[in-house]
């Protein structure tokens, strides 16, 4: 009511109204001409009014632009898209700015983003446009895209490289290993004791190299030989992993339990390997008492987090990052055999599934490995 009475007051006093209009015009003029955004009015496809910033972006003087067709400054191949986008925006179909390229007076190509709105100018229909220079952002985006592409390529190459190396090195290694074993078999106790010792070291070295290569091959296969993702029931996965570990579970008297586990999108074979490595480690790095392993899971939005908890020897927190590196071992081969690849493979599998893996542990107090699987962010099938 108060508002209405004020309005009627304004209508009643034309001199007040004229003052208000003058103020508005002045405000518009300042806003328009001082704006750091290229601003302009187009009528019948031609510039009627432009501000300094637009002239600056296009590389012209303001008065050089007046009366010229606005589309003429758009890069020829972008013109159709600009016309289409502008029409859609003027009809209210979309409110986000669209991007295209313009050609400046100096024949430089720049990327710009524009929004348009239907207005009236001097009592005729017109288009009010605003435009900013996004060339730098575009260049950064392009560079980023290029770098990401290069990184993906080099990653794939590296994986391929590791695969080929570990695969092709097996053949000559098999020769070395087999013939040293043949020497040992046929000639032990026929040469002197030094010879026996040398042969034994050669045999052992070749066997060790074989396990390392095998680990490397398995590791590189995570990336190069992965299967497309499908829906997999994690209880089945854990059961499969346990079946594969049957002997270790029986021999150690381990008890492995799990809560209700969800269904996730993933590579079934790799998820079995993941659980198998973690449960296998829990059994391998046990204390005197029989190992107890428990698996639980929680879900938040598209991310499922699993925890594999054990009552084993635990890990000093200072190693909680490095244990996931390839060939990383915290014990001598005499204490615990292994290649130091198991957790590196786990990490790679988890990352392929869009997740993270970490460990919480104290020496002597068991360990809990946490890992996540992102139903939305993993490698698409």
């Amino acid at each position, binding site marked *: 009511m108060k508002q209405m009475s004020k309005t009627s007051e304004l209508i009643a006093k034309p001199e007040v109204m004229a003052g208000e209009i003058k103020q508005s015009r002045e405000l518009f003029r300042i806003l328009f001409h001082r704006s750091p955004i290229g601003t302009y009015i187009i009528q019948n496809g031609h510039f009627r009014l432009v501000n300094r910033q637009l002239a600056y972006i296009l590389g012209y003087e303001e008065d050089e632009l007046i009366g010229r067709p606005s589309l003429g400054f758009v890069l020829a191949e972008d013109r159709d898209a600009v016309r289409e986008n502008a029409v859609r925006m003027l009809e209210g179909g979309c409110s986000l700015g669209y991007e295209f390229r313009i050609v400046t007076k100096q024949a430089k190509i720049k990327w710009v983003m524009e929004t348009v709105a239907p207005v009236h100018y001097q009592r005729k229909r017109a288009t009010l446009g605003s435009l900013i220079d996004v060339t730098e952002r575009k260049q950064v985006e392009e560079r980023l895209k290029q770098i990401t592409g290069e990184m993906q390529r080099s990653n794939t190459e590296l994986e391929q490289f590791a695969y080929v190396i570990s695969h092709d090195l097996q*053949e000559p*290694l*098999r*020769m070395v*290993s*087999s013939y040293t*074993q*043949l020497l040992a*078999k046929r000639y032990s106790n026929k040469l002197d004791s030094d010879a026996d010792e040398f042969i034994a070291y050669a045999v052992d070295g070749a*066997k060790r190299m074989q396990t390392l290569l095998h680990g490397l091959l398995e590791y590189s296969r995570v990336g190069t030989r992965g299967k497309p993702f499908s829906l997999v029931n994690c209880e089945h996965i854990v059961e499969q992993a346990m079946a594969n570990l049957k002997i270790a579970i029986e021999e150690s008297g381990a008890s492995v339990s799990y809560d209700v586990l969800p269904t996730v999108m993933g590579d079934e074979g790799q998820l079995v390997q993941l659980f198998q490595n973690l449960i296998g480690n829990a059994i391998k790095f046990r204390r005197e008492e029989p190992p107890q392993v428990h698996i639980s899971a929680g879900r938040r939005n598209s991310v499922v987090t699993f925890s594999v908890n054990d009552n084993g020897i635990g890990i000093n927190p200072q190693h909680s990052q490095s244990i996931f590196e390839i060939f990383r071992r915290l014990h001598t081969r005499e204490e615990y055999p292994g290649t130091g690849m198991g957790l590196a493979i786990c990490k790679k599998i988890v990352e392929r599934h869009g997740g993270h893996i970490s460990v919480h542990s104290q020496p002597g107090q068991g360990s809990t490995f946490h890992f996540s699987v992102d139903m939305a962010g993993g490698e698409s099938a």
Partner: protein
Amino acid sequence: MNSQIAERPMEILLVDDNPGDARLTAEALKDGEVENRLHTAKDGMEAIAFLRRKGRYIDAPRPDLILLDLNMPRMNGRQVLAEIKEDSALKHIPVVILTGSRDMDDIVKTYDLHANCYVTKPIDFEQFIMVMKSITDFWLTLVKLPTEEN
């Protein structure tokens, strides 16, 4: 059905381009218990010539077992296998793929070509002896196969 098995040494054709590998297989066979005569072809062309008794193989015996490597120059193991299995005179000879490859693609492809079995050579020599013994025991003494005349 095939009583002559016990009376003559078994003829084995080994197809392998790598002399080190071929020798190793020979050594492993020596340690096995089946009496055998080992013939070696160093690639697929030689193997086919041997099987068809071409050229210097005019007097070659018909092998009781073929041990076939996959990766060889000129004519690889898959091509040899395809040729053997398409030849009615040869297709009953058991072909064991003996290779360093654990590649699942290789395994599937060779079974598609009707390999009789696929064995990955173990790195460990003792295991290799065991493998060779199992292969020869199985294919040369246990299994009944149609004779050439059939």
